């Protein structure tokens, strides 16, 4: 249960080795005792993430989750949800290959879309059903500013996030009144492992900035979380910009 001040007792991280997900978990665990379920592929990164959270006093459980094997991943998640009541679930699995690699390798592009979008759809539907039955819950979906308007520099990644964004925005409306809330988080460029070596875009933020915004929105939020907040008016501008202008600005 979320308590009256919006603190969860259990937190599920799908894509548990994501730096943003890890920051969210660490921020919550620093405040209060927390049970964290890390759903990710078995790896040293997953063990390291678990160790960090254990060090913060959280109890940690790991579940195998491979976004490229959806039937299997769903089965493992389903059995987790049957035994552990999840208060907040963060859908954070994602990949950001170089755009040039994606353009040269359609198989890699499909795999990226599977991880970023298709798997998120499967997980979202599963979480929605379970949380609707338990009558409460918060789903946090990590979208991106790249979902707002495709740029030629990263439109493959952007299209996968646009799909995720549309799906969770619709899911939020569908769950309205069920006791389950959905937060669609749209961060700008995030300094992280995933973006290492890339040139930071304007409005760059850190995983901790995203975590702070999410943690602040969990108690009552049921909508879109822009990180930073200034991204919201700016993206309105970007969205309405005529094509020729948009291309010339070369965002």
């Amino acid at each position, binding site marked *: 249960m979320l308590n009256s001040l919006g603190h969860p007792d259990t937190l599920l991280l799908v894509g548990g080795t994501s730096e943003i997900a890890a920051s969210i978990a660490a921020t919550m665990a620093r405040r209060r005792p927390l049970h964290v379920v890390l759903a990710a592929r078995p790896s040293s990164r997953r063990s390291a993430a678990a160790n960090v959270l254990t060090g913060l006093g959280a109890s940690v459980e790991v579940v195998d989750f491979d976004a490229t094997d959806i039937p299997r991943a769903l089965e493992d998640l389903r059995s987790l949800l049957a035994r552990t009541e999840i208060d907040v679930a963060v859908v954070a699995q994602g990949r950001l290959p170089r755009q040039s690699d994606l353009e040269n390798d359609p198989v890699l592009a499909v795999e990226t879309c599977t991880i970023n979008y298709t798997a998120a759809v499967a997980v979202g539907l599963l979480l929605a059903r379970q949380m609707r039955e*338990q009558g409460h819950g918060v789903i946090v979906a990590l979208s991106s500013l790249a979902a707002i308007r495709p740029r030629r520099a990263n439109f493959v990644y952007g299209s996968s996030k646009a799909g995720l964004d549309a799906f969770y925005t619709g899911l939020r409306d569908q769950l309205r009144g069920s006791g389950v809330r959905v937060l669609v988080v749209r961060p700008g460029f995030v300094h992280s492992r995933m973006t290492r070596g890339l040139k930071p875009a304007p409005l760059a933020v850190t995983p901790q900035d995203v975590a702070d915004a999410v943690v602040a929105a969990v108690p009552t939020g049921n909508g879109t979380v822009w990180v930073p907040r200034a991204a919201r008016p700016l993206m309105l501008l970007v969205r309405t910009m005529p094509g020729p202008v948009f291309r010339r600005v070369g965002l």
Partner: protein
Amino acid sequence: MTGTSTITTFARSMSSRSALVQPSDEEHWLRLLDHPGPRGVTVRGAGAGYSDAALNSGGTIATTHGNHRIRAWDDRAGVVDVDAGLSVADLCAFTVPRGWLLPVVPGTGRVTIGGALAADVHGKNHPRRGSLAQHVVGARLLTPGAGVLQIGPDRESDVFWATAGGLGLTGVVLATQLRLARISTSWLATEEHTCADLDDVLATMRACEPSHEYVVAWLDGLATGAATGRGVVSTAVHLTADELPASLIGRPLAFRSAGPSAPLPAGPRLIRTPVMRAANAARFAAARRARGVRLKGITAALHPLDATLDWTAAYGRRGLIQYQFSVPDGQEQVLEAALVALSAARCWPTLAVLKRLGDAAPGPLSFPSPGWTLALDLPTAAATAAASVLDRLDDLVLAAGGRVYLVKDSRLRSCMVPAMYPRLDEWRRLRNALDPSGVLTSDLDRRLDLSGRHGGDRQC
């Protein structure tokens, strides 16, 4: 199961979706407990609690609204047998004109007798009268695992004491037999004493205790510095018939309940710091001017918040939380520390009420224990920003040998409960024997893992 609805706590700070049912008779209750559904059943009385003890997200909430009769009345012994869904105010409306009063009256008359027993409520006279359960002769308890039990302090006493303060998790209380106290009038002589700081309040309360049935202090939660904890100590004593003024001689046992309160939709948040500051200053000044004894009826004296207006609406959409804890005598510094810490965090208590507590009742989860209890109303948004301050206060309270009142709680860490209630394991064993498959639950049970069935063995 038919449709579900969103149920919100009285304090408006928590809500969840549940299916609502209103069993009408014992058979209906039995059927319900036999077919509880995957998320179990929560028994709900008036819904006047601050916590989620009467919420059951995704499950079934069964209200006792359909059960509010006075089943039997023995006017020689002063014993009344009532359905669990009868409200304290309605019970008073029946007994007061007959010259009897519940010896323990909680701060609101809106709660049901079943709910009051499940919380083992106390009044403003705990050192003299103890908690509600200490005036219960017997109760009829419907349990999922052991059928219908007749329980009381001298019959199935361990089940009885597990039920008193058991937050509705041991069974469904169908009926309760209560032993009332004789009153010769329904009027109280009330006095107010203004106190400049917390020490003054504590000394005044101690001084008033031996000679007054009811003693309670209102503290100005916004006072700081040397004035921290300043407040108004209110006392009340029952008048005897020969003390009545001429104007009341014709109606010595008059009783007027507060009437129904229509729930209002959450309005704009009117309760803001400058408003509270002005209101508290006015309250303090009024008490200073009003010298001498004032006569009040039972409702006005003991249920001052039962106005017909739904005051929780003024807290806005997120409502309020109440933080109520106890500390033993000698640990008064925790009371001051709480006021100081909350004001430093700019989480001003909008209402602060201090009472004395006497000896504890035998119930393993019963709240009162000798010393003091401070109840603080906090706007939810301010409390959210000060969440870690409240957690640190829990640590202070625990270290001082005190505890947080579970029926008011909405934010305690579950790991604190076994330490604050050291007999939790004993209670769990009794509870789990009465309800082995965990039919009875609540959001409070899940959040604090009271029953030990929700895997909440977190470390603090």
